[in-house]
């Protein structure tokens, strides 16, 4: 019988003690964290979100009592398999570049009859009393791209524009600490507390980071979407809150997703 450690901080601490006791400190903390992640991968609770999301996708919901089974994520109505590997992309019906979350909002509004405000209301879950439908849907849709290579388009002028704006935002420095994304993610081998900071300006770093989100965060007991990841890095950067499904969030996602092109998508993953 085996079960996850209650909180990641405790889990990692316990693991260090074990490592020190049994292997006399062999292996760096980073190796040990990698082992910890591998041990968790076997029973990734992200699957609970995937199952809930799939159910939700098929349920007749909203004022129009419609399911999302006719929602076009870019590969035709109802096609989920592989859809995430080509997002964000330009959608003619919306005349806008959309990432997965924005597209889901679009389908919830146009097909299920929700107001836009309602569809966007609760993007990030918090425990049992505030489960986020959005994160469940994201888990389901992204799981259907596992193993497929990222192939984010840059053919429409608006896709190119989104990429350029995303790149600008990535390197833009400001706020009380004069931070930009590149401050924390522009060099190799950087760490904050015990976390490796990926170098997102290099192909390897960009690919590895993008293809492992969404992820189940053990420390939060929640499945987190890429929109959440960006929102939280805006917070760490001491920038004003990144609005959910905003043009800025889509542009930044376009920049990072496109830079991961060619890499195999491997999420929902599990992170500390």
């Amino acid at each position, binding site marked *: 019988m*085996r079960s*996850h450690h*209650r909180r990641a901080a405790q889990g990692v601490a316990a693991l260090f003690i074990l490592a020190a006791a049994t292997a006399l400190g062999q292996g760096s903390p980073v190796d040990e964290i990698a082992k910890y992640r591998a041990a968790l991968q076997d*029973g*990734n*609770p992200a*699957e609970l979100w995937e199952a809930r999301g799939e159910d939700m996708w098929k349920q007749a919901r909203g004022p129009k009592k419609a399911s999302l089974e006719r929602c076009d994520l870019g590969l035709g109505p109802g096609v989920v398999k592989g859809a995430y590997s080509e997002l964000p992309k330009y959608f003619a019906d919306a005349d806008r570049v959309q990432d997965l979350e924005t597209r889901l909002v679009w389908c919830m509004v146009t097909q299920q009859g929700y107001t836009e405000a309602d569809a966007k209301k609760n993007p990030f879950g918090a*425990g049992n009393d505030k489960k986020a439908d959005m994160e469940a849907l994201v888990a389901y849709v992204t799981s259907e791209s596992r193993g497929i290579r990222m192939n984010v388009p840059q053919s429409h002028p608006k896709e190119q524009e989104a990429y350029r704006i995303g790149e600008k935002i990535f390197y833009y420095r400001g706020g009380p600490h004069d931070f930009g994304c590149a401050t924390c993610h522009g060099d190799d081998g950087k760490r904050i507390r015990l976390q490796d900071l990926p170098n997102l300006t290099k192909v390897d770093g960009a690919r590895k980071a993008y293809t492992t989100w969404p992820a189940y965060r053990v420390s939060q007991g929640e499945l987190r979407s890429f929109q959440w990841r960006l929102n939280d890095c805006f917070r760490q950067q001491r920038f004003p809150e990144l609005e959910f499904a905003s043009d800025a969030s889509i542009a930044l996602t376009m920049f990072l997703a496109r830079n991961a092109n060619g890499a195999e998508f491997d999420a929902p993953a599990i992170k500390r």
Partner: protein
Amino acid sequence: MADPMKIRANVVGDTTEVKVLMSHEMETGQRKDAQGKTIPAWHIQTVNATWNGKTVLSAQWGPAVAKNPFLSFKFKGGAKGDKVQITWTDTRGDTRTDEATIG
């Protein structure tokens, strides 16, 4: 109501390997909320697994088990197509039962 469990069961040689993910807050009763008030304990207390109606695992859990717990165990026997059923009951008396077919 609690979300369904995710159960996988596979025959490996003469044993069946079962992997279960459960959706539960598993609140320890040790944490405090933002106002400093203790958050009451609320966690799975008993887990029971049956194979074709016969108990193959029964466990009592306390507060030290993770949120959304993962349980993995093996039992002797089992064949493709047999049913494995898991039931948990928590400190509020809520209970959930799910079933999987051995693959």
